[in-house]
């Protein structure tokens, strides 16, 4: 069942330039949806428009099929978790969690029961009498989460809730939030700039860039079938290698000494377009010298223990490529090593507008990739 629907949502502050350009989106009941993009891309603005904290310039917002453009925030039946947690500094944890519940005509006993339940779930039971300033960052984050849970609102909005935590805690909270969301079956809209969070948490996600939706879909589908060069380089860490190439109907020339067969040769029209080649670091492989596509010069290696990131150049020193190999590889700077490109995992993008022209896996962008907006 569709829970939240955005139809042609637009936002403009000065009436001339749109900071949000035509966002169409349908969220299912119980879905964990992530809005992800670099800072300033408008993801928080979209969230605030859904919450009712920011007026909608154009387009429509439906919640459970009802038009909600002009409803005040408390009539939209949602809860929200803010980046800085927005805890009331003069109230203790319990008062913070139950703050505002009386407006929903919930009895004191019921408030207390819900508060204890949420506190139990989040491990806050021992801290109910403390003030927010006496809590650590992670505990404050949980209080904010508990406050959202006790309202029992079917829709929860989160605006970068983990960005103030250290890396270890973030990883743990990531999985906790996901588990709670599943357990309670609430629909979640989650804003983040961290593509790892998006990849690991989302049922589906939308990548935003300068107020425009770049791609909507399941994390793995987006990873495997990016709709354009922006998505390709934003999702995945380290980013996909996207390099310009000289293309002829039969070949793609990455450098004078490295050419690959042109996989688009069936499609003559597309085959002769200006292209950019995209290949993920894990699809550049170490090779036996006789099978190598190229012999490259290592400029840096980062050994992470389970894997090694190798930065190398072909001929043009400006274009640095990254390869990711399993295991621990010790190379010195300047070493020349033979590599091979996995042709089954190659992407070709238009040089003019960055859109995908051809992806190797099945020759054509598949169904999910076509869910893509642009």
């Amino acid at each position, binding site marked *: 069942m569709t829970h939240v629907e955005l139809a042609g949502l637009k936002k403009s502050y000065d009436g001339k330039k749109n900071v949000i350009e035509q966002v169409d989106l349908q969220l299912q009941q119980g879905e964990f949806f992530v809005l992800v993009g670099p800072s300033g891309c408008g993801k928080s603005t979209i969230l605030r428009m859904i*919450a*009712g*904290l920011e007026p909608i310039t154009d387009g429509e917002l439906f919640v459970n099929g009802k038009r909600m453009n002009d409803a*005040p*925030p*408390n009539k939209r039946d*949602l*809860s*929200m978790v*803010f*980046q*800085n947690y*927005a805890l*009331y*500094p*003069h109230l203790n944890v319990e008062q913070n969690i139950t*703050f*505002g*519940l009386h*407006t*929903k005509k919930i009895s004191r006993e019921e408030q207390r029961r819900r508060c204890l339940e949420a506190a139990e779930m989040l491990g806050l039971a021992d801290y109910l009498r403390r003030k927010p300033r006496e809590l650590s960052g992670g505990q404050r984050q949980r209080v904010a989460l508990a*406050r959202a849970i006790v*309202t029992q609102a079917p829709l929860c909005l989160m605006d970068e809730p983990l960005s103030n935590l250290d890396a270890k805690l973030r990883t743990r909270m990531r999985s906790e939030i996901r588990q709670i969301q599943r357990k309670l079956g609430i629909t979640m809209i989650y804003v983040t700039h961290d593509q790892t969070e998006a990849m690991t948490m989302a049922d589906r996600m939308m990548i935003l860039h300068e107020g425009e939706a770049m791609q909507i879909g399941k994390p793995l589908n987006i990873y495997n079938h990016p709709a354009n060069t922006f998505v390709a380089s934003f999702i995945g860490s380290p980013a996909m290698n996207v390099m310009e190439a000289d293309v002829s109907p039969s070949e793609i020339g990455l450098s004078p000494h490295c050419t690959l067969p042109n996989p688009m040769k069936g499609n003559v029209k597309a085959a002769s377009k200006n292209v950019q080649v995209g290949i993920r670091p894990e699809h550049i492989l170490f090779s036996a010298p006789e099978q190598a596509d190229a012999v490259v010069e290592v400029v840096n290696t980062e050994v992470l223990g389970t894997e090694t990131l190798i930065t190398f150049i072909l001929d043009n020193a400006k274009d640095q490529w990254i390869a990711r190999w399993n295991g621990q590889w010790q190379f010195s700077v300047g070493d020349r090593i033979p590599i091979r490109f996995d042709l089954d995992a190659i992407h070709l993008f238009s040089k003019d507008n960055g859109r995908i022209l051809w992806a190797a896996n099945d020759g054509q962008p598949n169904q999910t990739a076509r869910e893509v907006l642009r």
Partner: protein
Amino acid sequence: MILAKRISLYTVLVICAIIMMFPIFYAFSISFMDGGEVMGGQLLPSSLSLDNYLEVFQKVPLLTYLLNSFVTSAIVMIGQLLVSSLAAFAFVFMKFKGRDFVFFLFISTMMIPWEATMVPNFMTIQSLGWTNSYLGLTIPFFALAFGTFLLRQHFKTIPQELYEASQVAGISRFRFFWNVILPVSRSSLITLGIYSFLTNWNMYLWPLLVTNTESARTVQIGLKQLQTQEIASDWGIVMAGVVIVILPTLLLLFAGQKKLQKGLTQGAIK
């Protein structure tokens, strides 16, 4: 070297403190002297007699004056706190066209001296028939640009997210103001409260204008009255009155000094 510097610094400070404190000390000391001792130019009383204090309460209705001053100061303090905090709340948390312009207009009234508006204010009060009443003594002071400014600066340090969170929770605007903003800004409110209480306690010109009966006068008028009546005869009684009048001021300052300092500098630093 450091010691010499410190000694000279403290010498200067002590001298300044003596110069500042001498009149108050002398007034305190005179309040225990009889007429002859004052005329003799003694610095310290020969005996600690409380006769002057008893007499001052008999000569003028000082208790009524004290009560009047206390009540008007308290009403003005509460009025100013309410009006200033509500105005500051609107200037920080409500969005409307021309908000900043209105605020600067508001602030610019600080440049107009109070004395300049005294005549129209007096005529208004007179035609409302509020002379010789608490209404006339208090209501003209409820709106205070300085107080609004002070509280606005403090409210601006409160994260907007608190307001948004309460909107999502469905808390009404007034409830948010009352249950969140006021408790969070306690120190600024105390500062402003002390400031407005003292300002009003020490007010002289306005009470002189709008009161002319003994039952409505405030202490500062009472002191002047004492001086006119008793001039040349008994300074001891006048000074006893003065000491009684400055006592509440001193007590309030001692009690609230930390808060006062904190509040006055808070807005400036953040």
